[in-house]
């Protein structure tokens, strides 16, 4: 019989909970998608698979919940992904783990398998990409392998959906193997481990004592702490010293060697590989010779980046135009309809400028954002993204950043929220926090409408150049700020780059569409909640106290704005409307334009009204302020989640200071020339 996991699952009628784990690039996500189809949801912003994804499927009447674990190489404490995977298995106790392994690369994939076994997990092994393995001349004796490892094995070709039914069958027929102690460490070593286990069992530890003992011997920083709190610390220390002697001084290497030695033995038994004397140089390597060439690599990357932004704007803008036309058409028709039915003008303005205008101003970005996410997903799926990080490593290092910092920075042009989540790919905490802190300076797509509005009115002739200058200013500041923070808070070397470069492959269109749509959907959700709420809030604050003129200086919003306005006098926009727009811009930067529209009496009057209040110098200063002044609410929330409250507060305060200072500088200098 199946055990029911947790009351909630029971209520939902879930019969079984399984986790899908495996190395990065093993096709784990493809298998997850193939199992769950469209029946999946991401609990949060997805950064490929770093966030917890859940799905479910029903097979022969059994409802099975599937959790997608982050792709990992081991279960150490050196990376967040590995900790997430490990903690999930220990705390949530799924029925068993489906380990997805790249069949053509089994040796390394089995290393994770062994560690999961050491953690006491029941496992079903999936040999994925078995077609590629065959084409490389690798033959796996599946029966024998299954016998030796003592687990069921299923072969699949995930991206073509082959073997998925067999996998579902195997999942529903799964019989727990029970915990077995692996014998590959040798008798003497194992008896040492067992003595440690006896001690550790009496210390209350979350993890299985066997796993803890091995992790202590591997000198894993998180588990070494357990020695200190153990009830018989000295005995434990003696055993550790004993293990050290057995392994000639380096226990951690000894353990790794034993694992790989065992895997090697299994290999000899079950795998036949027609080995060519020299390592084969595949097509992928030939592409890499060009793509990572020291003269071609970087220019090629920048060319692709330029091409990306061309596509985002050239392909996206016409569609954005249609959407905008559609919304203004709807708004005018609805307001005509409402006024024909004697609805009060203020309610009409609420519907027209508030609701329709507010939502419209967000949906306008949908094409641009979707195209950006699509291209980023395309780069990830083909394997180019890893090369981009690789190629940029040297330049990023000289800036005090990591090669992998570059991907989040590029993503920041789309939206800082998924970009900040994507920093999880960085192993070192220092590098991560630094990358997170500077990310809001990468001008996200939500800031673009502010630039378009102001540059269009005050710099009509040079609109493109002015907008580009703001993007450039953002990048320049990011670099400078990174250097300063590096010198103050994150002294020491940047973690070196070590990353797997998956073989290039043709993109799977469906996967890319799924990923980019998932990410776009998150953006839309935000548009539907935060921004909609903001619009209503502005409308209410502008209409109260009762009887006041809409958004006049005497309304609540006017009062709030007037408090802050004097602060911005040195920057050239010391009137309450600008302050109010900036305050509401914290909710989401897109709101700045909408708020100005509402405060200056609707989008139609905005152009003339702005010209009465701003001049080119203060307009530029206002754009600079909008670029820098504060990360939006969603970004602050994600910074808090990823880096902690302290750093979130720091990000807010540094950006406010920097934004105000830069705005004042640009205004004071601009005043002399413009």
């Amino acid at each position, binding site marked *: 019989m199946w055990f029911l996991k947790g009351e909630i699952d029971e209520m939902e009628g879930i019969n079984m909970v399984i986790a899908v784990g495996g190395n990065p690039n093993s096709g784990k996500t493809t298998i997850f998608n193939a199992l769950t189809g469209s029946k999946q949801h991401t609990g949060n912003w997805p950064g490929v698979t770093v966030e917890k994804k859940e799905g479910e499927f029903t097979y022969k009447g059994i409802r099975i919940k599937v959790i997608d674990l982050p792709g990992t190489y081991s279960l150490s404490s050196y990376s967040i992904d590995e900790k997430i995977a490990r903690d999930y298995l220990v705390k949530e106790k799924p029925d068993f783990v489906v380990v997805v392994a790249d069949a053509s*690369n089994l040796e390394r994939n089995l290393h994770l398998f062994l560690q999961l076994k050491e953690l006491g997990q029941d496992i079903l092994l999936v040999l994925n990409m078995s077609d590629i393995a065959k084409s490389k001349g690798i033959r796996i004796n599946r029966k024998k392998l299954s016998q030796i490892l003592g687990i069921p094995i299923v072969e699949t070709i995930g991206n073509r959906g082959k073997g998925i039914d067999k996998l579902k069958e195997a999942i529903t027929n799964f019989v727990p193997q029970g915990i077995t102690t692996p014998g590959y460490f040798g008798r003497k070593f194992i008896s040492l481990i067992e003595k440690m286990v006896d001690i550790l069992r009496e210390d209350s530890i979350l993890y299985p004592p066997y796993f803890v003992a091995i992790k202590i011997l591997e000198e894993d920083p998180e588990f070494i702490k357990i020695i200190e709190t153990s009830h018989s610390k000295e005995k434990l220390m003696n055993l550790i010293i004993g293990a050290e002697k057995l392994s000639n001084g380096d226990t951690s290497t000894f353990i790794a060697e034993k694992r790989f030695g065992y895997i090697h033995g299994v290999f000899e038994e079950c795998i036949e590989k027609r080995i060519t004397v020299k390592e084969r140089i595949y097509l992928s390597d030939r592409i890499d010779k060009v793509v990572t060439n*020291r003269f071609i690599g970087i220019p090629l990357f920048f060319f692709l980046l330029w091409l990306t932004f061309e596509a985002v704007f050239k392909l996206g803008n016409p569609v954005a135009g249609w959407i905008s036309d559609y919304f203004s058409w709807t708004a005018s028709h609805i307001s005509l309809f409402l006024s024909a039915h004697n609805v009060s003008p203020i309610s009409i303005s609420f519907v027209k400028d508030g609701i329709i205008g507010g939502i419209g101003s967000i949906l306008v970005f949908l094409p641009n954002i979707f195209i950006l996410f699509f291209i980023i997903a395309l780069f990830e799926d083909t394997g180019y993204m890893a090369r981009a990080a690789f190629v940029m490593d040297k330049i990023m*290092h000289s800036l005090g950043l990591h090669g992998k910092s570059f991907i989040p920075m590029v993503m920041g042009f789309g939206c800082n929220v998924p970009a900040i989540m994507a920093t999880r790919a960085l192993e070192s905490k220092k590098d991560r926090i630094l990358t997170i802190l500077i990310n809001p300076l990468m001008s996200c797509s939500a800031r673009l409408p502010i630039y378009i509005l102001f540059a269009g009115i005050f710099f009509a002739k040079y609109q493109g150049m002015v907008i580009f200058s703001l993007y450039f200013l953002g990048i320049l500041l990011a670099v400078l700020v990174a250097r300063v923070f590096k010198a103050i808070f994150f002294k020491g070397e940047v973690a070196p780059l070590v990353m797997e470069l998956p073989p290039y492959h043709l993109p799977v269109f469906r996967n890319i569409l799924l990923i980019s749509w998932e990410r776009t959907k998150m953006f839309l959700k935000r548009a539907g909640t935060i921004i909609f709420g903001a619009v209503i809030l502005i409308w209410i604050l502008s209409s109260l106290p009762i009887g006041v003129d809409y958004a006049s200086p005497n309304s609540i919003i006017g009062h709030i704005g007037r408090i802050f306005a004097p602060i911005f006098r040195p920057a050239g926009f010391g009137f309450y409307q600008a302050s109010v727009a900036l305050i509401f811009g914290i909710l989401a930067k897109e709101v700045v334009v909408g708020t100005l529209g509402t405060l200056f009496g609707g989008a139609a009057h905005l152009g003339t009204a702005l010209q009465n209040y701003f001049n080119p110098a203060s307009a530029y200063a206002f754009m600079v302020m909008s670029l820098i002044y504060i990360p939006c609410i969603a970004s602050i929330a994600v910074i808090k989640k990823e880096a902690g409250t302290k750093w979130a507060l720091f990000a807010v305060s540094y950006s406010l200071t920097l934004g105000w200072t830069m705005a004042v500088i640009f205004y004071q200098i601009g005043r002399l020339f413009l």
Partner: protein
Amino acid sequence: MPLSLAHPGEYIVTGIGGKRGMFVRLQSMGILIGDTINVIKPPPGPVIIAKGEIRIGIGVGMANRIYVVPKRGNR
């Protein structure tokens, strides 16, 4: 010699320096001391090494800390 001075071709890994985390990471990726690796993209700049079907990109900093000797018969 450090990997940062290697040419394309086969080498044996003789030592991995630097922080423990990186050592463990390389280990779990399947690169152990004594293993034969193939340098696909040589220095200067970051290096790509191959072991079997695996391709690993190694930044300049790390390439200085991985020690290798040329495999016999390789130049």
